[in-house]
């Protein structure tokens, strides 16, 4: 019996469309797992199925070894936070946060009860749900999300970021045993999103909340989650810690989604400088470096994947040459689109302020940190 959330072979169908196709996932207590994938990959459907909002066409969901498939949404003890917050506009901030405190969730027994004949919310308030306790809990949560004193404000007066903070406080208030977050930051602008991702991580860790977090933004996933599960077309491709995922994508699909932009067979002539760079890493055999990830020597049918910055523009003659296709600047750093023979068009990094004319041939050095090796058998489909 495993503690925490276990999803086994979950299938979600909408009519004839299979949105989630036999996905299995384990989330340990206190862990934050991100479901990462492009839109339409089924990640939100999986989240909704875990919440109990979509019926499973196959497989099961259980918590601490007990199946929750027969438990309706409101008795699962799983919190849910939506992309656009879904705050109740007819209640003020504290009214929203307190909504989940009316039930006896705080005094909930550890295991889910089978559906009883009487609804919780009609009985007298039990411990943890008395008005005084409730008010204290609301204040506590508003402070936690950095909105102390916002209680009486109508939700219409809040900014987008504040709304999501209230939604987070509301979802955390009943102390759910699992918090499900459906793209909670996607509707916000970039700077705010990056700041809130850090805050979100801090809040989840501070409260020890077990969470599943759906997003299509890998930076967000890497910032918030302990482990990242990559989904595509209804299937789970890989689940790993962010660093491992980045260094050891299990397949070309995963690598492409993470932003690896070129793939070269390790045996080809063009891959020579790359494999040499991989071999020249301080310790080519230690786990954590790309070559070491394979646990064996590089074979000719293995594939080297190149991320942005796999090449760096050098001043002295380098081993590789690339023709300039275009220059852009990102956060001050110059990025050059170069065409490298045998590899294709890749993004190379150049010193700040560097300018190049289109067609110029530049010497390039290889940065092994931006390389990953995909085992040959994973690439052959």
């Amino acid at each position, binding site marked *: 019996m495993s503690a925490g959330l276990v999803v086994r072979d979950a299938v979600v169908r909408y009519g004839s469309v299979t949105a989630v196709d036999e996905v299995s996932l384990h989330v340990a207590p206190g862990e934050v797992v991100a479901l990462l994938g492009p839109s339409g990959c089924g990640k939100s459907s999986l989240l909704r199925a875990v919440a109990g909002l979509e019926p499973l066409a196959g497989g099961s969901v259980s918590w601490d070894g007990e199946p929750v498939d027969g438990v309706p949404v409101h008795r699962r003890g799983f919190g849910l936070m939506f992309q656009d917050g879904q705050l109740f506009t007819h209640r003020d901030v504290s009214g929203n946060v307190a909504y989940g405190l009316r039930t006896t969730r705080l005094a909930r027994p550890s295991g889910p009860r089978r559906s009883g004949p009487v609804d919780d*919310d009609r009985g007298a308030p039990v411990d943890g749900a008395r008005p005084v306790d409730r008010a204290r809990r609301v204040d506590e949560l508003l402070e936690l999300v950095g909105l102390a004193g916002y209680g009486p404000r109508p939700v219409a007066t809040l900014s987008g970021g504040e709304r999501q903070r209230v939604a987070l406080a509301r979802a955390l208030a009943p102390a759910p045993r699992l918090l499900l977050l459906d793209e909670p930051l996607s509707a916000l602008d970039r700077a705010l999103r990056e700041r809130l991702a850090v805050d979100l991580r801090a809040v989840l860790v501070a409260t020890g909340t077990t969470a599943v977090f759906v997003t299509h933004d890998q930076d967000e996933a890497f910032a918030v989650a302990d482990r990242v599960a990559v989904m595509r077309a209804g299937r789970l491709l890989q689940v790993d810690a962010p660093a491992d995922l980045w260094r050891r994508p299990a397949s070309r699909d995963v690598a492409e989604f993470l932003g690896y932009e070129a793939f070269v067979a390790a045996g080809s002539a063009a891959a020579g400088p790359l494999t040499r760079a991989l071999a020249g890493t301080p310790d080519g055999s230690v786990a954590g470096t790309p070559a070491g990830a394979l646990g064996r020597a590089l074979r000719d049918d293995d594939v080297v994947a190149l991320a942005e910055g796999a090449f760096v523009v050098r001043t002295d003659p380098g081993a590789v040459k690339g023709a300039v296709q275009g220059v852009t600047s990102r956060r001050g750093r110059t990025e050059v689109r170069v065409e490298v023979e045998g590899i294709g068009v890749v993004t190379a990094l150049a010193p700040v302020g560097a300018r190049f004319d289109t067609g110029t041939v530049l010497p390039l050095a290889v940065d092994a940190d931006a390389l990953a090796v995909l085992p040959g058998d994973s690439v052959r489909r």
Partner: protein
Amino acid sequence: MSTATATRPDLPVTGGPGRVARARRPGPGQVLFWSAAVVVPLVFLGVFFAWPVVVMVGKGFVTDGHLDLSAFAEVFSRPRTWRIVGLTVAQASIATALSVLLGVPGAYVLYRRRFRGRSVVRALVTVPFVLPTVVVGVAFRSLLVQGGPLGFLHLDGTFAAIVAALVFFNYAVVVRAVGGLWERLDPRAAQAARALGASPWRAFRTVTLPALTPAIASAASLTFLFCATAFGTVLVLGGLQFGTVETEIWIQTTQFLDLRAAAVLSVVQLVIVAGVLVVAGRARSRQERALALGAPAQNVRALSVRRPAGMPRGDGHGPALAAAAVTGLVVLLLALPLVNLVVRSLRVGDRWGVDHYTALGTTGGTLTVTVWQAALNSLRIAVDATVIALVVGGLVALVVSRRPRRTVGRRAVAGLDALFMLPLGVSAVTVGFGFLLSMHHPFGLDVDLRTSPVLVPVAQAVVAVPLVVRTVLPVLRAIDPRLREAAATLGAGPGRVLRSVDLTIAARSVGLAVGFAFAASLGEFGATSFLARPERPTLPVVIFRLIGRPGADSYGMALAASVVLAVLTAGIVAACERLRAAGAGGEW
């Protein structure tokens, strides 16, 4: 038009750098168009609604050129007045409450759930709403009368029968208004509540219901309005014992010739109506406040008797089934009077036959024209009335859909909106009788419009205009202003923006507006009963004459004529609604 007028005057204009943003002057063409759009409906309403009503009410309060308000005291000292006012309010309140209680589950089942035959049920539910009031009255009578299928209930001529008929008539109002909003309501708000531990019932009560409240309030006030001013149905069902202010005005005017009492009652009705309209207006403005709305398709779930696989117990399947059961029962009850009407119209003595229908080709011995001739009159008049109502109502909707930047402008627009709702509630009898009084040498001109055949369609158009406005306006208001801005930045002048954006999109709702206007006109009875020339009666007038006449044959003819009128109205509305669906699907 010049490019200088490419920006609508009511939208903020950003000036060049360093310049103060200032709205540009509208071009002369624009000024002319919008002035006409405001003036034409106002003149129409003034001449054909306000003036007759003022003349009619004035008759009661002006004696020998002096204002004399003693009629109020006199009329209110009669117990009969209080009884009628009480009855009106009681009937309308109970019927409204029942319509809402039954209509909300109906809206859920018909708009939030998917099942085989749903479109048929939706259409069936709408039929009573477009049926002429006289037909509804006749249909209920034939159901409840001694010897009818429900005769054993002894409900004929009772308060309960009137309330039932009013609910029958207005159920669709609630279902359509609430369902239309519910269909698009983002289900995730309720799901968020469920995830916070709320049972399906608590999530409905604390999240969904508050979101629906504006639509419910709006539908309830409209229903109350229709019930409080019900005329044909109550006149047929209520007999002498029961009535509304509206029927009482008719009785005081035509039976007792007591214009003072009629005038006082008209004012009483106006006060009630204005009060309800204020409430309705508030509810509507709250509804138009931004609600989280989604596309209907993703919100609608299949309805099945058995709990779907994978759905846990206690997840709201029970309440859904209960709502479906209630709705099923209501639909059966709605169908009952209609089916019965058709069946009874085919009974001749103890056998079946189409004799009553054949009799429609005769005058039935006492009518001035054959029933078919009356039907033809009705159709001709309805075409004229619909055209007038569309032009006037369309212009009003266009003006009211604007959102001027200045507060004065916004208030004026809101006022115009409320003004054109008034004909919904002001006694059609008052309007009709007012026409008779005012169109004799109107404004001192030496013409007598009372004999003019124009009068009947104009009176019916007055009644139909609010329906056109209410159908077209929401569509116009829902147009994203940025669409107009996009058209303007692409070089379209104001005229072209209006044509290519507003009118094109509104055209999709025009089909339904035509249907409602046509139905309202075909079934109009209150005003028409005063205005129709004896040699050119309309179908509802003929039906009313037939049921007032003794003899099984007259009654049979009335039933057959009611079926004809019902089929005509329902058929035309159905065709118009189909027109709208095709337009909506094909264009976008």
